[in-house]
């Protein structure tokens, strides 16, 4: 009997639960997660399916005994990761108006994982490189050198493939183990730029190469590096990304220079759980490749995803990955891919929910979060961690300070949102509003000690007031630097990048 999950965890009951408790737990959850009550919520639908499976298993005496005796005994010992959820408030007032609540969700690798994970995970890496005309000159040369150095650092058990694209794609290195490194380097050195930018062409060929070696032993990653806009094929790219994530392939995007479509690359990367990086100068490409591969080789779980099922009267408004690699997340279907979990670093997410007006005074549930992931080396597919979040609705005033972790994360995230709002105002042609927001942002950045970024923001505010537009570089700098602020570790990398690129 193959049970890819722990039915007791799914139902939120103890192993010694009676039949009656099993039935009650099932009823309670089924009522909350039923598709009729949660239209257009794929996350709730997936959780509902699990709850049904768990119920069927535990109410059939023979399957239950089999599970308890054989599978459950093993499951019980092995926890690969845990999910900890902290709400911004433990109790809210029963007000006749909408309220907001934040949840900090952290996914921790289990402690024994770090110790047992001395062995590195091998990578299956595909580079998809833009070789359009705009890459000509030193930019192309530096990217080629970075790719060659990357090949040099790979171990013989890794897999590498390199695809280049302009209006069409060409496979420079078909997926292979990097054993004959000189010949691989030679092939990279022959890359010559020409033509336009059609990302879809490159992505199709890249995903195809990556898929050839997609297995549970290696972690699959496609890096798309581009310096330009793609036209007309964006929808195709996003469809392809959705297929890729189902096969456990994560697409990360690197935007080089400041003339690329940040909204599109963000969407593309978020669809697969990957991240977007802004690389101001080609000198930094190598460093980004390095960091990326190092992160991948620390992975011990892949195909990580979180499903979010808020109660029917509660709405998920926003989800943001704080760390690693801060990235806004797509919440449309309540299933959010998170790529891989590293053995030495938790994943933390901030979720924002709207609570309805006029809630009854009582303890109530808010949402059910389920994180699932495949443990590498096929040690455990579909491991799941569940958290049922509840709070008290009361008429008694609570004076609890929100948890520091939430305050800190949100103080940075608010800046990123301010930047977004300034851009929204600008798109609507509201110059005054945009300038005001940029000035506010600059003030907050100064208070935070981010002097350089504050100055950049201030000068962009002046530019907007005069020319009604942000400079291309300013736009990217403000967006990706405020985003990087959210995660101190990633900020370190980003700042080095910033300083390096601003040295004359």
């Amino acid at each position, binding site marked *: 009997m193959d049970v890819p999950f722990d039915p007791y965890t799914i139902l939120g009951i*103890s192993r010694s639960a009676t039949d009656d408790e099993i039935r009650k737990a099932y009823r309670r959850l089924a009522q909350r997660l039923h598709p009729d009550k949660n239209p257009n919520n794929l996350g709730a639908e997936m959780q509902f399916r699990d709850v049904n499976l768990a119920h069927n298993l535990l109410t059939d005496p023979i399957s239950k005994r089999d599970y308890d005796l054989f599978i459950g005994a093993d499951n019980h010992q092995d926890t690969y990761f845990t999910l900890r959820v902290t709400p911004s408030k433990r109790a809210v007032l029963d007000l006749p108006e909408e309220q907001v609540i934040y949840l900090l969700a952290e996914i921790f690798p289990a402690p024994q994982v770090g110790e047992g994970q001395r062995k590195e995970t091998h990578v299956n890496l595909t580079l998809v490189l833009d070789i359009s005309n705009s890459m000509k000159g030193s930019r192309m040369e530096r990217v080629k050198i970075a790719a060659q150095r990357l090949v040099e650092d790979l171990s013989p058990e890794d897999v590498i493939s390199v695809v280049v694209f302009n209006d069409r794609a060409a496979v420079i290195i078909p997926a292979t183990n990097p054993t004959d490194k000189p010949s691989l380097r030679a092939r990279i050195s022959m890359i010559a730029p020409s033509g336009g930018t059609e990302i879809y062409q490159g992505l199709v060929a890249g995903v195809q190469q990556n898929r050839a070696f997609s297995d549970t032993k290696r972690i699959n990653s496609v890096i798309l590096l581009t310096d330009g806009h793609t036209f007309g094929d964006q929808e195709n790219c996003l469809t392809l990304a959705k297929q890729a994530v189902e096969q456990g392939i994560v697409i990360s995007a690197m935007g080089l220079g400041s003339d690329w479509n940040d909204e599109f690359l963000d969407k593309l990367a978020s669809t697969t759980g990957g991240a977007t990086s802004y690389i101001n100068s080609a000198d930094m490409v190598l460093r980004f490749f390095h960091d990326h591969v190092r992160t991948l080789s620390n992975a011990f779980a892949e195909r990580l995803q979180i499903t979010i099922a808020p109660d029917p009267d509660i709405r998920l408004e926003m989800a943001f990955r704080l760390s690693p690699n801060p990235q806004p997340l797509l919440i449309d279907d309540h299933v959010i891919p998170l790529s891989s979990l590293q053995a030495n670093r938790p994943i933390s997410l901030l979720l924002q929910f709207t609570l309805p007006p006029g809630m009854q005074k009582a303890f109530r549930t808010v949402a059910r979060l389920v994180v699932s992931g495949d443990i590498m080396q096929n040690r455990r597919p579909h491991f799941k961690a569940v958290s049922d979040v509840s709070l008290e609705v009361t008429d008694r005033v609570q004076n609890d300070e929100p948890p520091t972790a939430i305050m800190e994360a949100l103080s940075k995230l608010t800046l990123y949102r301010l930047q977004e709002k300034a851009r929204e105002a600008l798109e609507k042609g509201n110059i005054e509003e945009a300038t005001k927001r940029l000035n506010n942002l600059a003030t907050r950045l100064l208070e935070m000690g981010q002097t350089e970024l504050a100055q950049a923001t201030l000068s962009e505010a002046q530019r907007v007031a005069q020319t009604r537009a942000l400079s291309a570089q300013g736009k990217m700098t403000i967006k990706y630097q405020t985003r990087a602020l959210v995660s101190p570790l990633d900020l370190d990398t980003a700042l080095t990048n910033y300083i390096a690129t601003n040295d004359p």
Partner: protein
Amino acid sequence: MMICSECGHKNRIGMLYCEECGRTLKPSPVDTTEDIVAVAAQEVPQPVVPYRKLAVTPPELKIRGTAHLNDNSWLMFNFGDGEKTLDVKPARRLIFGRADNTSPLKPDVDLSPYGALEKGVSRHHAVLELKEDTLVLSDAGSSNGTYLNGQRLAPNQPRVLRDGDEVKFGKLVAHIHFK
């Protein structure tokens, strides 16, 4: 609504930073409708009609009890509907759980007389520690969880215990009083 005292932007209740200017939204000392309106009245000239008055909560009235324990205080645990109580002298570290003949590990405070077994109390369920004059409670990785005022504690994540708090060991409910 919470009105930002800096820029006057109306934020929804529960927001922690102003959406418009990014400043911290300080919850008023006592988070009642009156106080929110009071802030509003300073910033916005037109009169604001309070939409609702909360039950009488004079500011000096403590809503959650004190966290400070006197040197000679005892803790009273009031179980279930108040029929059974247990007095505990706080010590540096007390393990709450269920004594069990099959296990050599004995809790410092045995909850068996209060229906621990039926209510899913683990052998080592929760730890109560005295840090100077405050008490902190943490879950010791119990199967059915420890709840403080309705919220489940993450294992080994200590939380301050106050007078009047409700603690749940699995399904065993206890109200705590300092005396």
